[in-house]
Every structure is written in C-alpha cells, then in structure tokens.
C-alpha cells in the first residue's frame, strides 16, 4: 500500500482553536489509510517546512495530504516542500481547513466534522494522484509579422534582437495605409518623413527580413513552433519558422456607398476622408471642376450607426484635415458637422481648441443630407434643438470609420482565432490580453484588432513584442501547463464533442486515426473536454474522474 502522510497544521490558534485536531487524528488513525499523522504549529513557517521535509523523508511517505489553509495561500509553498523531499509535487493534496472551515464555522464540532470529511476526501483523492512532470518543448524565438504597415514595422523593430530574427511580410510596399497620408495628428508633422525614418530603421536592423509584395499562404504549427509559407514577389514559396506570429494586417476605411443621404458616389465633390488624404499627399486640393473649393464641410460619424462602434480616430483626423485645408486655401470656409466629439487623449482637447482658433466652425447636427440645387451642393441639416437649416458648400469630406481588413477572416481561420461581432480579430481578453488571442503565440496589433490611432497601434505593436520577448527567450525551452487534458487513444471514438467546445483549439481530430488529440502546448487545463466526453476518453490531469469521484465518495460517506 502506498504510504500516505497526513500533516495537520494548527496555524497557531487559527485552526487549533476552531477544530479539534486531536479528534481528527484519532479518527483518521482508525480509518487506517495513512501511514502517519503529524501535527504542527505552523507548517508554512521556515521551521514548519524544515519539519515537513525531515518528517516526510524519515517516514518514507510517498504521498502527502496537508490540512492547512487555502491552496491560494500555500499550495506552491508545499509543492516546493514536496520537491525538496524528493517527491513529485503533484503527489500532494492540500485541504483547506482554515479559510473554508475554521474561519467560516463558529461551531467547533461542526467544523471538526467538516474538516474530517474534507481530509478523508483528500486522502482518498491523493491515492489516485499521478506524478505529473513539468513539460517543456523546444521553441523558436523568431517572429513572423504579417502586415508591413506602421504597426507591423513597429512590431518588427521592437522584436528584432540580437538572437531573434523577424520576418516582416507585406502584400504591397512597406508603410501600409500611412503611405497615403499627408500629415499626422496631433503633431501635424509630415507623415512620409516619419514613415521613411521608420522604414530606414527596419532596413538598417540586420535581424529583420522583409518580404514585400508577398503573401502568407499558410501558417501551421503552434506556439513556439510555427511554420509559415510565404509566396514572395517572384511567386516562389518560401518557408520560414518562428515561435510566434503578430498579425498586423490593419483595417480599411468604410466606404459609405449605400448611405444615400451623404451623396457619396452621386455628387462629384463628396470624398471620404481617406480619399481626401490622397489629395493632401499630392498637395492639390481642387473640386472636380478644377477650382479650389471656397467652402468645405466635413461630416463626422458617417456610418457609425451602421458599424455599431465609434472608430475613435475620426474626430481628430477630421480636425487635422480641416486645419490642412484652412492652411492651404486662403479664405476657405471649413465647417465640421459633428454629433459627439470623441477626444480620448490628454492632448486632443487642446488640438480641438487650436482647430477652433484657426477659424474652423463646429456645428452639432442631429440629421444631415447632402443635396444639389442648380449645380450647387447644399447641406440640409437639423440641429439638436430641432432647428433646420441649409448650407451651400463646394466640397464635402465624409469622415468614415474603420472596418476590418477583408483578409481578417482568412487569418482567423488559419490560426483558429475568433473574430468579434464587428469582424475584427477578437482579443483573448479585452482588458488583460488586448493583443493576445486564444491561440497562444499569435498576437494581434493595430487596427486589425479594432480602430486605433497611430500612436495606440504602435503601443500595441510594442505590447506584442513584450509578450514575445518575455515568453520566447532564445536558448530557453518553453514550459507548458501541467494540468492539461489528454485523450485515451483506446477509448476515444472521435465524435469531436471535445473539439467543438474547447475555447483554445487545443483539441483536434487526428484524421488518420479518427480520434481526437490534445495539443498540450495549447491546452490550458480547464477540463471542459473531460466533462463533455461521454465515455471519459478525454481525461483531465490532476482532476480525473477518478480523483473527483473518490473525493465525492468520502464526502458522502
């Protein structure tokens, strides 16, 4: 019989006063299931830990149950003690008789009997524990960055290190959408100057291999070991290996065709902000008739209702455009039609104020329509106070939001990451993992994740770099979660129930065997699959059906 050692911690008076430990020891001795019972004042103390190691070794215990505090407090502590005692740390069960017994049960007798029940359950459970080993795999520290816009460039620069190669893959030319920009807000600095500096930096960094005019055909593998097939500009297929992937494929401007009231596509001089941006980079602002406009209206929030989200950057971007026009064209009248000003940065209120100071008008509307009367564009609008008015203008710039890159879906499928309800990549956790995905090792940065300013996109690129630099260190092996699931090959029938419900794509069907298999690199160990599997072929390490039912049977004795 395996030798199980039981240790009862008094936790000073905390447990000893609330629970009759002697009685417990006596009962457990009667059960005759443990090889020894020891009691100690405070097992988590240095003295206590020393006592444990010595006692375990002396008694040659093989499995240990410690009745003390919450595992949140000292599970790790005692697992270390297990290791110091030359035992596998998982041959151990901690019974929480402090937080969840002593402290919550005023009646000593009741507390004692509850503690006894819990300890018996733990003894019964620990008998069925398996020694688990910390698993490690070799991993590749290199990085694949998909998308060569400013986010991708920044991500590449931030990840490129001495011992780490970066593959930066861009479908067209490095620079992305920013190549069409004239100025940047809120600094109003020339965009191309800024971009070129960055591109030069990329080229000067020895560690970045740039693929321009290239496509990612396929990415296989998983965290630590991805293989990407790239079709380069010469239509050759190249395979690169990396440990992680950053998806920085950006977003597209929303095109308001179908929103008839804005006159886009109907009237000549109605542009989207993105189209206008191209004009600014060519430095030539004219209407279709070739004359510079005398009055320009910029309409905010075009399509916002349809998209269902605020794109965050358009208000400020519109102001940038307004200022540009005002500077370029003497005496031009620029009016901004807005609903709500979204200025989410400490610098933006000031930017707005400056914009106003330049003589740019701001008009809050509740409804608007672009019409034409005798060759003159007219803006008919309704104000918030329900006053209606009309304004003749020569040019209309529609400030539209950002929508997902159509490629998003392809990459999402390729790498098993969900997209959100708007079609952007879905982050692992909105607050804590904003650039991570449920597929470990795949990160999303910039507008591929949602609308962001250039600054925010670049921070996200840096964040992705941070995640990669910290988890994939050159020369180090990747440590995996221990309490993962696995599938018994003999028992599995391959129904895929576990595959469907796994949030991390850790389970797949091995088509050759027609059974499901767990990728332990991806499994995070929740055990959902073990419950979903009707036959019990999917098994959750350290929470096996056996272990749980054994716990139950003692509790229900």
């Amino acid at each position, binding site marked *: 019989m395996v030798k199980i050692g039981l240790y009862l911690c008094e*936790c*000073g*008076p*905390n447990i000893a006063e609330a629970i009759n430990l002697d009685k417990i020891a006596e009962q457990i001795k009667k059960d005759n299931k443990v090889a020894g019972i020891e009691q100690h004042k*405070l097992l*988590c103390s*240095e003295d206590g830990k020393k006592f444990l190691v010595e006692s375990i070794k002396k008694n040659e215990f093989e499995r240990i149950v410690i009745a003390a*505090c919450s595992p*949140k*407090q000292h599970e*790790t502590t005692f697992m270390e003690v297990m290791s110091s005692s030359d035992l596998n740390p998982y041959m151990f069960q901690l019974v929480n008789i402090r937080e969840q017994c002593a402290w919550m049960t005023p009646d000593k007798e009741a507390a004692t009997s509850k503690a006894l029940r819990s300890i018996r359950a733990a003894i019964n459970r620990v008998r069925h524990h398996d020694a688990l080993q910390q698993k490690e795999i070799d991993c590749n520290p290199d990085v694949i960055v998909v998308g060569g816009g400013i986010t991708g460039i920044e991500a590449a620069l*931030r990840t490129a*290190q*001495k011992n780490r190669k970066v593959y930066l893959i861009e479908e067209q030319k490095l620079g992305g959408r920013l190549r069409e920009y004239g100025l940047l807000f809120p600094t109003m600095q020339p965009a191309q100057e*800024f971009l070129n500096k960055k591109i030069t930096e990329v080229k000067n960094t020895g560690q970045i291999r740039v693929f321009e005019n290239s496509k990612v055909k396929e990415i296989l593998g998983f965290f630590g070991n991805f293989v990407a097939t790239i079709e380069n500009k010469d239509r050759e297929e190249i395979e690169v290996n990396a440990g992680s992937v950053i998806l920085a494929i950006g977003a597209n401007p929303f095109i308001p065709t179908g929103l008839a009231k804005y006159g886009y596509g109907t009237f000549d001089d109605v542009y989207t902000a993105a189209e206008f941006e191209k004009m600014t980079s060519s430095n030539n602002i004219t209407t279709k008739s070739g004359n510079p406009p005398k009055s320009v209206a910029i309409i905010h929030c075009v399509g916002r209702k349809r998209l*269902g*989200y*605020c*794109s*965050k950057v358009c208000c400020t971007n519109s102001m940038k455009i307004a200022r540009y026009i005002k500077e370029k064209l003497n005496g031009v009248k620029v009016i901004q039609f807005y609903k*709500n*000003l*979204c*200025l*989410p*940065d*400490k610098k*933006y*209120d*000031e930017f707005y104020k400056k914009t106003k100071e330049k003589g740019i008008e701001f008009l809050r509307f509740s409804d608007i329509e672009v019409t034409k009367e005798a060759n003159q564009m007219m803006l008919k609008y309704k104000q*918030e*106070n*329900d006053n209606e008015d009309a304004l003749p203008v020569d040019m209309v710039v529609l400030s539209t939001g950002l929508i997902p890159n159509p490629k998003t879906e392809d990459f999402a499928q390729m790498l098993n990451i969900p997209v*959100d309800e*708007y079609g*952007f990549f879905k982050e692992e*956790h*909105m*607050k*804590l993992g*904003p*650039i991570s995905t449920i597929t470990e090792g795949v990160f999303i940065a910039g507008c591929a994740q*949602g*609308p962001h300013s*250039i*600054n*925010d996109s*670049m*921070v*996200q690129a*840096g*964040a*992705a770099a*941070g*995640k990669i*630099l*910290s*988890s994939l*260190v050159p020369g*180090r092996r990747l440590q995996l979660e221990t309490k993962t699931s696995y599938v018994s090959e003999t028992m599995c029938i391959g129904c895929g129930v576990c595959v469907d419900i796994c949030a991390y794509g850790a389970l797949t069907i091995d088509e050759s065997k027609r059974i499901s298999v767990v990728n332990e690199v991806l499994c995070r160990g929740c055990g959902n699959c073990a419950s979903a599997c009707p036959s019990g072929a999917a098994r959750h390490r350290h929470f096996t059906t056996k272990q749980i039912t054994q716990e139950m049977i003692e509790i229900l004795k």
Partner: protein
Amino acid sequence: MAKNRDILVIGAGLAGIEASLLSAQAGRKVYLIEQASYFGGAAIKSEEVCPNMECATCMLAPKQSDILENKNIELMTLSKVTNISGESGNFTVKIIKRARYVSLVDCIGCGACFEPCPVSMDNEFEENMSKQKAIYLACAGALPNVPAIDMEYCLRGKKQEECTACKEACMFDAIIYDDKDEEIEIRVGAIITATGFKLNDSKQFKQYGYGEFENVFNAFEFERLRASNGPTSGIIQSRDGKEPKSIGLIHCVGRDNRGYCSQVCCMYLTKFAHYALDILPGVKVYQFYKELSIPEKGNQKFYHEVKEKGVKSIRAKEIEIIKNGNGAGLKINYQNEKAEKESVDVDMVVLAPYVEPFPGTDELGKLLGIELGNFGFFKTAEFDSVSTIRPGIFVAGCAQGPKFMQHVTTQAQAAAARALNITED
C-alpha cells in the same frame, strides 16, 4: 561595464503588475515597489469592469498570485524611491521601505489583531466610508494578506502610550513595534514607472456640492458602495442608509477647467447606471453629459444597452447641484440642449471628476530626471508613448495619461518590451 539586467517597476497597479510579470517571465529579476501597504492599484477597487461587466477581482487575483509566487519578483510594499543615479543599463536606486510593524514572514493573515485594537480610523481604501483599526488590511482579500500598523494613529505612535493589544492577540509574534524604516540600494538596468492616477477632488468645483452635500459621491466612492467586499457589501445606499430612488450621474466634472477628456468617465458612468438599474428596482438614472466619448469596441453597444434599460441621457450645460427641501435630497439644475433651464430631483449624485496624476508624480519625475507634461503626467515621446526623455526609463499606465484598462495593459507590455530590449545581453 556590463549592463545590469534587472528591472525596477515603480507602482504595483495593473500596469506595474503586468510589466513585472512579463519582465520576470523573461528571466529578469524584478523589483516591484508600491507605496501602499497592499498592491493591485485602482483596478481592485472596482466591482465590475465595463463593457463586459467582468468581476475585477477575478481578473486581477490570478495575476496578483503570480506576482507573489514568482521567485524573480521582489515586491516591496510601503516603499518609495528616494534617489536614483547612473544611466540606462546601470542605474543605482535608493529605496526607502517604510516600517510595516508586522512581519511579512511571520504573519499568516488571520486577522486576530484587528479586534483588540482600540483605535478606530477612517479607511482610506474605502474612501473613508468605513472605519478600520490602526492595524489594518486595506480590504478583505487585499494582498499581501498581512496587515500594517498606521503609526500615525496607533496609540504607541501618536500618544506614546504603551498599548500592546495587537501584539498580545498575535500568536505568531508577527508584530514588531520597533520595526524601522529601511533604506536599501539596488542596481537595475531599466526602470518602468507605473504610478497611476487619482481622481481629482472635486471640492474646488463648488457648483457640484461635493463635500457639501453628503449624497454627492465621487466615482470611487460609488464604486466601493457597489463592491461586494466594500463597506456596504455591495448595497448602493445614501449616507443615511437609504436606498436611492433616483441617481444623477455627472460627466466631465472639471474637464473644461483642466483641459482634457479623461477618456474613461463616460463608460464608467454608464457602468454605474448599469449597476444601479441592476440592483435597485425602479431606480431612475439620469446621465448629464457634454460630449459622449465612447470609443473602443463594445463600448457603444454597452452604452446603448444600458440606455435602453431606461437611463435618461441629457446633454447639459451649466450644471448646478443644490439641496432639495429639508431632507438629504438633491436637485440638479441644468441647461438642456435647447438652452432651456431645467431641473430634476435626485436622491444621489455621482460625479466623474477628471483623472489626474497620482500625488507625488512630480516629485518622482524630478528624482527620475524625466519631464512632466502639461498636466503633470509623465511626458513621453511623440508616437512612442512609453519612452521618456531619459534612456532606460519607461512609463506605463495612467501615469502617462488617463486611459482604459486595455491600454494600460498594452502600455505595460510595451514598456516591458523596451526594458527587456535595452537590458539585453
């Protein structure tokens, strides 16, 4: 001279925690210093986080456990930087660790010491809405689970009395009355400062009646009212313990004076509306806003969902809060979008004051030799909002400016990337 690979993180809120975890995961020794007796920052004060209404403690607790269990991270609470010298790759930092008077090693967090302490003082963590003893834990579940003695209030400190109540109650000899402040010197290669923010004390804006009327709350007060582990165990009530029948939520408190949008207030007030509608049947909620700033995915949807539940959203100017009648009731006077004067009576008002740098940011800025921007936040480079002007020192989180949690996380991760990069072998 070889670069020092260790990293110092100042401030153990969400940003500091995230930056520390990443740095430690990369194999670096991390010193994480926190001025308070607990860590977790402002994030752990929330009950839930919008727009997904996730439990904040549930989000943070695993990360906090990771910090406490990580052998590479040395968490120093009650600590402050006093001096810094050297340069990127080789900083020497002096830190003062204030006496806790309770041993972090010996204390097991049983709390037996609270009861006997004769002193009652305001609980700062709970926005002074509840009392605590001079030996205290910020809130139930605060980490590390070891109390501290506030010597300013302890009878031994202020009155020099020979009180030993807590020491007697402690079975573990964890109380150290002669604990001393300790100055230590560490060497690090990079520094990340993540000292966070505070909400402006809105007393200066008389029109809102904060400090004058007891049922005008600021955002954190309201947050703690709703907190399950807060002073009312999550029951939203006015100061006299009554369930409010109507609540006014005031946006942009002080924004115009201050000069920037604090970004998060529209959303957290929406969350407050959700809180109220969720647990106060029949409550009337009014939102008084100037500009709605609801960027980020999911936020607009959340805003509309809450609005549909019956929040009255009013674009208002010239808001003024006055007493309504003889009781504790309040009246909100305002000018609506049609420039008409209107008013509503409410039982409770919650203000969203602007976000400002955490007190002491300026001082720290001087010590670190990094500039502060217009509003007192740490100044960062254009299009590189984690880098300060001094190489080797980075900023993360709301110390750089107000932001949503996700941006705090991203910045922390980005700052960690920089710190890891420059301290690379």
